[in-house]
C-alpha cells in the first residue's frame, strides 16, 4: 500500500532533523574531517623541510613497519594498559568492599576518595613528579625512614623505578574511579539473593564468585572498556613525569605521535601513525566488545 505523505509528516521530519543537525555538523567538522585529512596526508611526503603533497603510495606505512621506536611505544602503551588496569580494578574492588557496609563517616570518606579523579591528569603528573623528586620529594624521605639509611631513588630516571613511578600516578588517579563505579554496582546487587545464598550455606567466596561477581560484571565491563581506552591514549601523566624517558623507555603511542608530529614535523608519517592507531584501536574495541558480549 502506498504511503501517503501528508503535510505533518514532512513537518515532523523537519523537526527531528533540525534537532540533530547542529550536533551532526559539528561532529562532521571535528570528527570526520580530521580522519579524511589524515588519510590524505598519510599518502604524501610532508616533512619539516619539504611540503611535498605528491602521492607517495604506502611509503609511510612501510616505514612504520621498520620503526622500532613506534613498536616500542605501542608495546609500552599495551603494557601500561594490561598492568595498570587490573591493579586499578582489584584495588577499586577491594575499596568498594570496604565501604559497602555501614561505616561511620562513610559519605565523607567517599567524597574525599574521589577527589583524585577530577584532578587534571597533567596536574596529577606534575604532583607526582613533585612527590617523587629524588631530593625535594617526600616519598624518598619516607622510604629512608623505613629503610633507616639514606637512599636516593631516581624514580623518573632509573629504568626499574620509572614504571612503578608512572603506575603510582596512574593508579592513584584512577583507582577511585573504579572504586566509585564498583561501589555503585555492589550496592545494586540484590540483597535477597545474597541472603538466600547465605541461608543455603554458601561460603563467602562462593557468594562472591557466583552471585556478586556476575551481577556487577556488566558495570565492570564498562569500567574496563572506558579505562582501557583512556589508558591507550595515556599522554598527560607520562608527559609531565618522564616525557617518555629515560631514552624512549616510557614512550607511549600518544607521546610518540606528539614528538613526531609536533616537534619533528614528520607530518605525513605522523598521519600514517595516527591512522594505524585508530585502526588498531578499532580492532581492540571490537574484540573487547565481543568478549564482553560473550560472557553476558
Amino acid at each position: 500500500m502506498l504511503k501517503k505523505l501528508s503535510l505533518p509528516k514532512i513537518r515532523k521530519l523537519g523537526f527531528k532533523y533540525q534537532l540533530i543537525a547542529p550536533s551532526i555538523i559539528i561532529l562532521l567538522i571535528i570528527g570526520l574531517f580530521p580522519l579524511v585529512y589524515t588519510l590524505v596526508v598519510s599518502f604524501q611526503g610532508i616533512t619539516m623541510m619539504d611540503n611535498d603533497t605528491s602521492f607517495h603510495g604506502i611509503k609511510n606505512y612501510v616505514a612504520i613497519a621498520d620503526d622500532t621506536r613506534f613498536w616500542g611505544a605501542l608495546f609500552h602503551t599495551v603494557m601500561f594498559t594490561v598492568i595498570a588496569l587490573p591493579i586499578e580494578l582489584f584495588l577499586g574492588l577491594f575499596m568498594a568492599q570496604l565501604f559497602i557496609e555501614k561505616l561511620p563517616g562513610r559519605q565523607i570518606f567517599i567524597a574525599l576518595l574521589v577527589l583524585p579523579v577530577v584532578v587534571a591528569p597533567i596536574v596529577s603528573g606534575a604532583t607526582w613528579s613533585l612527590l617523587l623528586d629524588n631530593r625535594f620529594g617526600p616519598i624518598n624521605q619516607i622510604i629512608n625512614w623505613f629503610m633507616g639509611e639514606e637512599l636516593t631513588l631516581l624514580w623518573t630516571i632509573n629504568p626499574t623505578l620509572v614504571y612503578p613511578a608512572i603506575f603510582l600516578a596512574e593508579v592513584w588517579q584512577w583507582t577511585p574511579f573504579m572504586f566509585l563505579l564498583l561501589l555503585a554496582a555492589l550496592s545494586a546487587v540484590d540483597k535477597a539473593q545474597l541472603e538466600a545464598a547465605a541461608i543455603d550455606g554458601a561460603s563467602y567466596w562462593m557468594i562472591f564468585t557466583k552471585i556478586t561477581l556476575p551481577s556487577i560484571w556488566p558495570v565492570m565491563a564498562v569500567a574496563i572498556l572506558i579505562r582501557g581506552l583512556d589508558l591507550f591514549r595515556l599522554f598527560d601523566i607520562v608527559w609531565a613525569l618522564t616525557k617518555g624517558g629515560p631514552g624512549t623507555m616510557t614512550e607511549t603511542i600518544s607521546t610518540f605521535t606528539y614528538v613526531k608530529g609536533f616537534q619533528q614535523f614528520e607530518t605525513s608519517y605522523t598521519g600514517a601513525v595516527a591512522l594505524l592507531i585508530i585502526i588498531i584501536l578499532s580492532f581492540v574495541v571490537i574484540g573487547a566488545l565481543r568478549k564482553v558480549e560473550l560472557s553476558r
Partner: protein
Amino acid sequence: MNAKLKKNFKTGLRLAGAVVLTILFLFPIYWLFMISFKTADEIYAYPPVWWPESLQFSNYAVLFKDGDAATVGNSLIVAGTSTVFAMILGTTCAYSIVRFKTGGDHLANWIISQRMIPPIAIVFPVFILYVWFGLVDTYFGLILLYTAFNLPYVIWMMRGYILDIPISLEHAALVDGYTRWQVLWKVIFPMCRAGLFATAIFTFVFAWNDFIFALVLTRTEVATYTVQVTHYFGGQSNFWGKISAMSVLGTLPIFFIVAFMQKYLVRGISLGAVKG
C-alpha cells in the same frame, strides 16, 4: 554480646582501613597544596619540609601579578560555555534519536564511536582546519572543539535519561497547546534535570582538565590553566612554587563543583552504566 563485640571490632578494623586509604589518596593533594604556600627556600630544602613555617601567598601573588591566573578564567569561559553548548545540542540530538529514531542505530553508533578516537590523532588536522578559519587561539575555537568532543558523551548519556521519560508527558504538553520546541524546553529539559547535571559535571571536567587540545590550539590569549601549568616546567627547569600554585588555582574550582554535585557523580562517571 560476643557477636556484638565481634561486629564492633570488624567495624573498627574497616574504619581504620578507610582512614589509612583516605590519607594515602589525599596525601598527594595535600603535598601539592602545601608546596604552593612554601617559600622558595622551603621548596628546595633537603630534606623536604612537611609543613611550611608560615603560609606564604607569594606564589599566588606572582601568578596574579603576571596575569597568569587569568588562565583559570579562560578555562572557566571555555569549559563553561562549551558545557552549555554541548548540553543543549547533545540533549536535543539525543531527543531526536530517542523519539524519532533519527538515523537509526547506525547514527547512534557512529556518534559514540567518535569518542574513541584518541585526541592525538585528530589534533593536528583540527589545527589546520582552525588556521583556515582563523580559530586558533580564540575562545570560539576551543569552545567548538570541546563541544564537539563532548557531544558523543552527552548524546549517549542524555539518550539514557530521555528514554526514561514517559512519552505521555510530552503528549500532554502537545495537547495542552505547546509546540514541539516548547515541549523540549518546558518538559524534556526540566524532566532530565538530574541527568543534565550529572552529564554536565563530566563535560565540564573534561574541558577543564584537557591539556593536549589546549596546548596545540592556543597561543596566549585563551591559554587554559593546564597549558599554563606546563609553562613552568621544562623551560628554565621546574618552578615548583608556580606549578603548585597554578595547579591549586585550577583544581579548587573542580573540587567545589564535585563537592556540590557529589550525588550526580556515579552515573556520569560510568557513561550511564550505573543508574544513579
